[in-house]
C-alpha cells in the first residue's frame, strides 16, 4: 500500500513536469507571432544559408528565411493539425465503439470487420496512397491519416463499453426507465473516458510523425507554408552546406514527439497504479 502511494506520487510528479513541457511547446507555437524575431515567409537574398547567430538564432534557409521563426510557425501548423486530427478520430472512433459495444448485433459486426480491414494495411501506406489521390495539402493528409486512426479508439471504447454494459448499475438504470441515449451519455461515456483519453495522448506522437512524414514526402503542407516535415524536405537538398536548416525542424519534431509520447506513457502508468 505504502509502495503504491509512493509510486503514485512519483508518477504524479512526472505527469506535472511532462505536462509543463508539453504546455511550453504549445504556448511557444501558439504565440509564435510574438516570440518569432523575424517574418517566417520573408526571403532575403543577402542572408541565404546563414549560420545560427544573434539575428537568426537557428540560421537561415536557401531563400534567406529565418529558420527559428519558421520552426515556431511550423510547430503551430503541425501541432494544431495533430490535435484536430486526434480529436476528430477520438470523437468518431469513440462514438462508433460505444454504439458497437452497446447494441452489438449486425452494426457491431459490420463496423468491426471494417476496422479489421483498416488494420490489415500498414497505416502509412494507406495514408500515402489516400493523400496522393486527394492531393489536397494538409487537409488531405489529415483525411488520409484519419481513415485508419479512428480504429484504435473504436476498438478500445467498444471493449470498455462491453464490460461497462455488464455492470449492475447499467441494469439499475434500465429499472429506472432510462433511455439508451441517457445510459450511453451518463453511465457509459464518463466511465470509459479515462482510458480512451490516455490512448488519445499516446496517439499524438504517432500522428505528428504521420503528418510530418506526409509533408516530407510532399503530400502534406504545400510550400511556402512553414511545417516541420516540409522544412526538412526542402532543406535536405543542401544539408551539407547548411545542416541547421534540417537539424532544427528535425530536433523540434523529435523533442515534441518524445514529450507527448512520454506524457501518454506516464498517464497510462498512473491509471494502472
Amino acid at each position: 500500500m505504502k509502495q503504491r502511494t509512493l509510486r503514485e506520487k512519483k508518477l504524479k510528479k512526472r505527469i506535472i513536469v511532462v505536462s509543463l513541457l508539453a504546455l511550453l511547446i504549445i504556448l511557444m507555437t501558439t504565440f509564435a507571432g510574438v516570440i518569432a524575431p523575424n517574418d517566417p515567409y520573408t526571403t532575403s537574398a543577402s542572408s541565404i544559408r546563414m549560420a545560427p547567430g544573434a539575428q537568426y538564432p537557428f540560421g537561415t534557409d536557401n531563400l534567406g528565411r529565418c529558420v527559428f521563426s519558421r520552426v515556431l510557425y511550423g510547430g503551430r501548423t503541425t501541432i494544431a493539425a495533430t490535435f484536430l486530427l486526434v480529436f476528430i478520430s477520438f470523437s468518431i472512433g469513440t462514438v462508433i465503439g460505444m454504439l458497437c459495444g452497446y447494441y452489438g448485433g449486425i452494426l457491431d459486426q459490420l463496423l468491426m470487420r471494417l476496422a479489421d480491414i483498416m488494420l490489415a494495411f500498414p497505416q502509412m501506406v494507406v495514408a500515402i496512397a489516400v493523400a496522393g489521390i486527394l492531393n489536397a495539402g494538409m487537409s488531405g493528409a489529415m483525411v488520409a491519416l484519419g481513415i485508419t486512426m479512428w480504429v484504435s479508439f473504436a476498438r478500445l471504447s467498444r471493449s470498455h463499453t462491453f464490460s461497462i454494459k455488464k455492470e449492475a448499475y447499467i441494469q439499475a438504470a434500465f429499472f429506472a426507465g432510462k433511455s439508451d441515449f441517457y445510459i450511453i451519455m451518463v453511465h457509459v461515456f464518463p466511465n470509459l473516458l479515462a482510458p480512451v483519453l490516455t490512448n488519445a495522448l499516446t496517439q499524438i506522437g504517432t500522428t505528428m510523425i504521420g503528418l510530418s512524414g506526409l509533408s516530407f514526402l510532399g503530400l502534406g503542407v504545400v510550400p511556402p507554408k512553414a511545417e516541420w516535415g516540409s522544412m526538412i524536405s526542402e532543406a535536405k537538398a543542401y544539408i551539407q552546406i547548411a545542416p541547421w536548416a534540417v537539424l532544427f525542424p528535425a530536433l523540434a519534431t523529435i523533442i515534441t514527439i518524445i514529450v507527448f509520447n512520454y506524457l501518454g506513457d506516464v498517464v497510462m502508468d498512473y491509471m494502472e497504479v
Partner: protein
Amino acid sequence: MVLLEGKNLNKCFNDKIGYTNALQDVSFTLSKGEVLGIVGESGSGKSTLLRVISGMIPPSSGSLYFKGEEYTGKKPRQTGEFLQVIFQNAKSSFDPRMTMEKAILENGRGKKDKDEILRLLELVGLEERQLSRRAGELSGGQCQRMSIARAFYSNAEILLCDEITSALDVSTQARVVELLQRLKSDGKLSAVFISHDIALVSMICDRIMVMKDGRCVEQGSTDEVIGNPKDEYTRLLIDSVKRQAI
C-alpha cells in the same frame, strides 16, 4: 391482495453444451405486505427465476402478472415501474462516478423530492452527509441500505432481493436483516427474497419456496416448511443449517 403471480414458468437456455432447463413449471404468488423467500443451492434456478420475474430475460413459456395484469415479455424499463431489484453486490449497482443523491434521484422517474430522500435515508439508518458520497466511499452494508432507499424512492411496490446479504460480513448482514424485518413489520415491504441460506430466509420471510434443479420442490408458510418439511431436499437443507449451528 395478490400483487405478483407467476404461472407455469419455464426457462430453457440453448448454449454450446446443449439445452439447459433452468426453470421447469414454476408457479408462485406474492401478496401485498408479504415476503416470499426462495431458497436452494447454487444452480437450482433461483437467480434465473428472479431474472425472469424482473424482465431481465423472458420466460420460454408461462406467464407473469402484476395485480392481475399480464406483463410477460416486458423489459426492465417497464417492469421498473412496479418492481425493483436489489443486487447481490450493492457497490457495483451504483455508478462509481455518481454521488448517492444523483443515483437515488435517477430512480425517481422525473421526481425530485429531497425531503422524501431524507425520510428514506432515516428509514434505512443512513445520514444526509452520505448522499454526497460515491459507492467507493461507502461500506458494503451502507451501499446495500442505500440501494434499498433507492428502490423505495421509485415508488415500486415490490422488491426483488438477490442474495443481498451474501457479500456482507456477519455484523453488517445482521443490520440489513434487522432493517428488512423492521420494514416488514411496518407493512412497507412486499418482496421476493432469494438466498441459499434457509436460516436467514426463515427470519424474514412469511412463505418459503424451495427450489432444486429448476423445479419448485416445496412451497408453504415459513412455519410449515421449516417445522414440517415434506420434501427430502428441504429436510437436507434444514439439517445442514442445524449441523452448522452445532
